[in-house]
């Protein structure tokens, strides 16, 4: 199959790059590192017989926490052939980046972790950001963590016909935990650009500086009682989310 050059400004390239962005967050995200696609530099597409559609994208990445450009990444994103099934099959992603982890967030993470372990009460919050886009400064790490955790779901839910962003944290609640690993229950609202739907998920998220962010369970929430669109699913995300090479 020939390799097709894609216009980096066109949607196929951008959708693939956003999938790669979600993958990077599952690998490197933390309450102090939330990676976002900045700009697609180049992209190619290759139809792989029997396997699916393989995109190669080069793009720049920014860290939403510092609003600084943090490096260039090159990713291979394979959307597996559905084989005629309606089931969502998660894409396979492999990435390599330059300079990405040069920004050291260890100290901030340790400090936040220590603070949360030592708090007499558990953290909770609603509507982050509020209707006016405002986020209380001390809640920002929990917004970033939600963005990273949402990327686990958005990665699994993505295909060539989707473009996902996190729209809002409806609620975050810190749970009691017995060890160093902090636990949070999140209700997040995702915006899917193509359908323009706001999709609700409830996530159980764990975090500690040594282990990073994990999504222990993710449960899709129906939009409303009377309008269940055929997207309903509950997925269990295994702790190890590294992709199987295609």
């Amino acid at each position, binding site marked *: 199959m020939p390799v097709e050059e894609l216009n980096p*400004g066109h949607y196929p390239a951008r959708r693939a790059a956003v999938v790669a962005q979600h993958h990077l967050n599952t690998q490197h995200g933390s309450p102090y590192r939330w990676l976002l696609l900045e700009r697609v530099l180049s992209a190619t597409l290759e139809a792989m017989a029997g396997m699916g559609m393989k995109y190669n994208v080069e793009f720049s990445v920014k860290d939403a926490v510092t609003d600084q450009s943090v490096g260039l990444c090159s990713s291979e994103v394979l959307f597996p052939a559905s084989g005629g099934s309606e089931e969502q099959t998660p894409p396979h992603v492999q990435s390599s980046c330059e300079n990405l982890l040069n920004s050291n967030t260890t100290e901030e993470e340790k400090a936040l972790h220590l603070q949360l372990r030592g708090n007499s*009460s558990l953290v909770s919050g609603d509507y982050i950001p509020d209707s006016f886009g405002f986020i209380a400064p001390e809640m920002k790490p929990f917004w970033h963590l939600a963005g990273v955790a949402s990327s686990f779901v958005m990665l699994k839910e993505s295909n060539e016909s989707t473009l996902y*962003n996190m729209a809002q944290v409806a609620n975050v609640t810190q749970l009691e935990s017995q060890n160093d690993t902090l636990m949070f229950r999140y209700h997040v609202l995702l915006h899917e650009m193509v359908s323009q739907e706001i999709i609700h998920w409830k996530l159980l998220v764990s975090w500690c500086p040594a282990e990073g962010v994990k999504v222990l369970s993710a449960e899709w929430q129906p939009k409303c009682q009377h309008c269940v669109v055929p997207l309903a699913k509950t997925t269990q995300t295994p702790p190890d989310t590294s992709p199987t090479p295609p």
Partner: protein
Amino acid sequence: MITPATSYKDPSAQHRAMENGQQALELNNYNYTRYHSMDEISGWMEQVVKENPGLVSSEVYGETFEGKNITLLKIGLDSGSKKKAIWMDCGIHAREWIAPAFCQWFIKEILRTHKTDEKLNLMLHNLDIYVTPVLNIDGYVYSWSNESNRLWRKTRSCPAPHCECYGTDLNRNFYANWGMVGISRNCCSEIYCGPNVLSEKEAVAVTEFVGQRVGEILCFLTIHSYGQLILVPYGHPEITAPNYDELMQVGLAAAQAIKDVHGMNYIVGTSPDVLYPNSGSSRDWARLMGIPYSFTFELRDKGQHGFKLPEEQIQPACEEAYAGACSIINYVHDKAFNISTTMTTTTMETTTAPAPRNNAALWTTLLVSCLTATTLL
């Protein structure tokens, strides 16, 4: 110290409430770097008209499903002769709050600069600018009603008998390949195109007002968020605008003007190229009706904050979008009124466009001659 957000009060909320109570409709005190409720915007519109006689007038040109007046502001100076016009609407989708904020900013900037900016002054003698700050008023009011309704997109029309969800996507409801691509027939979908074309009173209002002025309106601008895009017709992937090449050049010049302000990148293209295919949009309808320049702006950002663009970004987002809109309006004005600029020279080069677009180039050339002829008459 981490404080639970439930007990945290946004300090700006209190400030906002005080401001709104005190400002008592003094335009000088109006804060353009905050989001405003429909009541505040309506009050602001009345005040703009009151304080700018001979320049700004208002017109009610329709009503919403819930019976609220849809009002536009008409900005222009009396020239004693027949004028051309520019259309701009904001807030066709309720949750895109930066759009109404931009329409207000756009008018504020014109009012602030028209006396000193000679070019703008000339344009206001040649053109009337029709601006609808909020088109989907019912939806906008609903999105303000409480935090869980903030992300409402559609109108608030009652569900069809077979369905239990409110509202139609206004930007899928216009008479432009209605119901064909990028739409849903499920009334619970966010891109529900409505039970039939122009089922929504808001879409009818625009269709009637603009439809009666097709010869007058040169340019149709419809303001949305988010994504940082400038979209040109058409949303249907199988149809190409006859002046596609020129629309792209004008759009790319606007994107450059935007970038020059704060360095933000905007992507320019048809919706099926850069976003997704869709039919029934007002932009496509305007172009199909014969309005030569029709663009959708998708303002900041690219997804980090999405519809909830922080208020501190209202100013930079509006400054850059203002530069983009002015770039387009300048071009359209200069071409219609035979003012030679570098852009018009560029346009003439479309005759060397690649084969599939040759008819577009021809059309462009014809348009130029038509406009010249009209002006001579």
